[in-house]
């Protein structure tokens, strides 16, 4: 019993959409960042799958996934620093309460 690329890519698609749902619906900034990480992981899984099946020797998808990991690490570091700065300035991380620009 073996599985093909469609299983991996389908799993990545579902994982991406679960992360997207969380990133759009959660009200806590930290939860939104967690869901963004889920989406990044789904993209990496898709890239590695395609790399395994299309370019197994040059591993182009694996390198792209590695650089996406670098950018994702930078993003989560900066994002959490922003959340901390926001918490210090406003005393909350609830996205509903960040409404200074609301007319």
């Amino acid at each position, binding site marked *: 019993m073996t599985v093909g690329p469609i299983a991996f890519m389908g799993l990545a698609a579902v994982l991406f959409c679960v992360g997207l749902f969380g990133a*759009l619906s959660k*009200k806590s900034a930290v939860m939104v960042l*967690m869901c963004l*990480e889920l989406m990044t992981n789904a993209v990496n899984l898709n890239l590695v799958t395609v790399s395994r099946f299309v370019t197994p020797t040059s591993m182009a998808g694996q*390198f792209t996934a590695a650089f996406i990991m670098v950018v994702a690490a930078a993003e989560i570091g900066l994002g959490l620093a922003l959340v901390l700065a926001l918490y210090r300035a406003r005393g909350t991380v609830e996205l509903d309460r960040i409404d200074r620009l609301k007319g």
Partner: protein
Amino acid sequence: MPETIPAIPFAILAVLTLYGAFMVILSDNVVHAAFWVLEVMMAVAGLFMLLSAGYLALVQILVYAGAVSVLLLFTVMLTLRSREDAIRPLDLSWGAGAIALAVLAAAATLVWTFAPSLEALPAVTPGVAEFGRLLFTRWALAFEVASIVLLVALVGAVWWAGSDER
């Protein structure tokens, strides 16, 4: 290296990944959600192993399980005033669900049309040594740019999260 991907490890890892992802969404405690994120990262590292991407699996465990989840937990702990603040309402919205379902339908269609064109699993899988050789020859410029991105992000994060006395 086997030329096929066995179904049983894949099924176990897929169930772990999806169950963890849904628990991130459905858990009512932010701390529990952070631990479920960690579990999803580990399961994805296992999937990388199944796809013969051993180096990426290691990096996944080091970077995500080692650094990102600890960072997430730190931020969760630092932004809670009391233990009760960790418990939150579920925050499920119909609009987000509709958008996510639409994206899922589009992605499923794309996967369904694209995946059959790559059925045969190639037998050849270079190891970590070949990965490293390519990283420092063909991808050397991207590697250096990635280092600069990490350095700038590190300095920026320290500056943002640092004290207000400046």
